[in-house]
């Protein structure tokens, strides 16, 4: 029984990272209708920023997260405004290819700067955790989960309570009507993508603490972000939170099956996604479009 509880806890904690990875991806997809294949790259850029700050300035990694968010917001805003906006009205194949191209460039630039060595961020408290009898709740994933929830709440707040957030909602509902009431689409689009990138950056910071990073380490997260959003349901931040936690649970339980192991990570993600799309395409919390 304790084992089961341990697994559930580990699953929810793992879910924290997936929530962070998913909310940014889902925002960009839901509002801009862009499936950002460079999402993983944005995540890993965040990881490297955290690593760099941790290594040279000895900052506690959790304190680097706001830097990740700001840096990636700026990057995301610039990318959307400068590049992605140019093909936003083209068929979706083009946004796919474009973001894939950006992904390629980003990863290779990182390779050029940092090389392919694995790096890790290990704060002093990384091996430790709260203990309740035989159940352990490790600190880093616990705080990460907290950060992820906070991030989602902040995102939801921005979307529902601020002017720019309402503008973004308006665009998501009806782009042309939004223009008619005077919303600057270019700016709003760029802010949206910037927010998505910022979330990715924070996720990257969290990931740097939970695994070793290398420029290509962000790749699997793109597909996983996609699955998380589908699982939870496209359209609301809360749905993605549920999706992320659920995905974490699935992953932990799947890995605990003797014999399978983590080599099948992608196969599991893909299989889950097909299952959801075939049985309940609107996701756990979503509404059928």
């Amino acid at each position, binding site marked *: 029984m304790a084992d089961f509880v341990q697994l559930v806890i580990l699953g929810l904690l793992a879910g924290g990272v997936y929530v962070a990875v998913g909310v940014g991806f889902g925002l960009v997809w839901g509002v801009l209708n862009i499936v950002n294949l460079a999402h993983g790259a944005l995540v890993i850029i965040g990881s490297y920023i955290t690593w760099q700050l941790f290594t040279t300035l000895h900052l506690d990694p959790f304190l680097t997260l706001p830097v990740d968010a700001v840096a990636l917001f700026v990057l995301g805003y610039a990318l959307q405004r400068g590049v992605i906006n140019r093909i936003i009205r083209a068929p979706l*194949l083009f946004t796919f290819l474009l973001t*894939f*191209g950006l992904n390629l460039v980003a990863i*290779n630039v990182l390779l050029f700067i940092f090389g392919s060595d694995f790096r890790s961020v290990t704060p002093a408290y990384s091996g430790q955790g709260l203990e309740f009898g035989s159940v352990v709740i490790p600190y880093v994933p616990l705080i990460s989960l907290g950060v992820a929830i906070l991030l989602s709440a902040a995102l939801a707040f921005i979307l529902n309570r601020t002017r720019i957030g309402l503008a973004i909602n308006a665009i998501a509902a009806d782009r042309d009507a939004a223009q008619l009431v005077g919303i600057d689409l270019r700016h709003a689009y760029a802010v949206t993508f910037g927010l998505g990138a910022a979330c990715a950056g924070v996720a990257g910071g969290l990931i740097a603490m939970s695994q070793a990073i290398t420029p290509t380490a962000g790749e699997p997260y793109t*597909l996983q972000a996609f699955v998380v959003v589908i699982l939870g349901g496209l359209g609301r931040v809360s749905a993605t939170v549920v999706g992320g936690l659920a995905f974490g649970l699935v992953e932990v339980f799947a890995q605990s099956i003797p014999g399978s192991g983590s*080599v099948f990570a*992608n196969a599991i993600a*893909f299989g889950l996604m*097909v299952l959801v*799309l075939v049985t309940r395409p609107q996701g756990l919390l979503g509404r059928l479009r």
Partner: protein
Amino acid sequence: MFLILGAILAAYALLAPLTSLDAAQSANVPLLADRLWFRIATIIAMFIVMATAWNIIGGITGYAAFGNVAFFGIGAYTTGMLIAKAKWPFLVALPFAPLVSAGFAALVGLPLLRLRGHYFAVASLGVGVAVGELVQNIDYGGQPLFGGASGLFLPIYAIDNRGLFFFYLMVAAATIAIAVTWWVLRSRFGYGLIAIRENEEAAAVLGVNTTVYKVAAFALSAALTGLAGGIFSQWNVFINQDNTFPIDYNVQMILMALLGGTGTVFGPAVGAVLLQLLIQFLGGSLPISFDIPFVSADARPILAQVILGLLLVGVVIFVPRGVIDFFGGRSRLSLSYLRRSLRETSL
């Protein structure tokens, strides 16, 4: 004008390798007599097959599959396993590559092709990634079923002028792919596919059985891609997850079709030649060598990828309808064409 130039180049590329035969050695025709060029030319032909095959499901039918490399790998492993484990002769094993690939595509296509747009693209990407992973890691009775991480070794095909043989075999496959595309575009099947691409609901109410047609296009695309994979396995003698399911190939196929012109007969082939030459050039595998300032030899593959990525971005933004459209009817590169493309798609 370009048509004639292209035809001349193609003829040269196809016939020059014959000079490697001992009888013609003394003629000393440059370039294509070199074994290195065989390899590259064969690779180019391979990509012509894959890009043309992708065009059938992606360009003509409008379902942009992002995981077609799965069929390449399936074809390669089908032939590979039949040769290595079941000891079948190569030419008997080869036809099974397209067959198995097509079968898999039909199976996977039925649920997958019900998805539209984003969902289909990423789902097919997922297939591509997952199949590669499964093939590499599935065990049977404790042993990796398909050779695992260490891959599968095939016996070397015993034939004279091996390089020449595989080159022409791959070229034959490319010819088949192009011929099939040409036939499709003139047939009832092709009209149905284009109708599905332009407006699926309208096609349905006009009597097009969209499900069957989509799956058929997918299977056809898979068969051709699998054929390339089957040839590759014997030609390369060694196959593993990295060289038969590289995710890169997915994008290359699409980029080639896009670059040359989706939905056309020769577009993907043109794109394949151009892009592959560029990739090889940047990667340093061409005999033409040069030094790039600030970039060490080690960093060259990285630079190659960066340029590839930037090229992808550039093509998508500026030349979305491909080179064939770009050059069709014009004799000069035109800035206004680029500007017009931009205006059509940007905010």
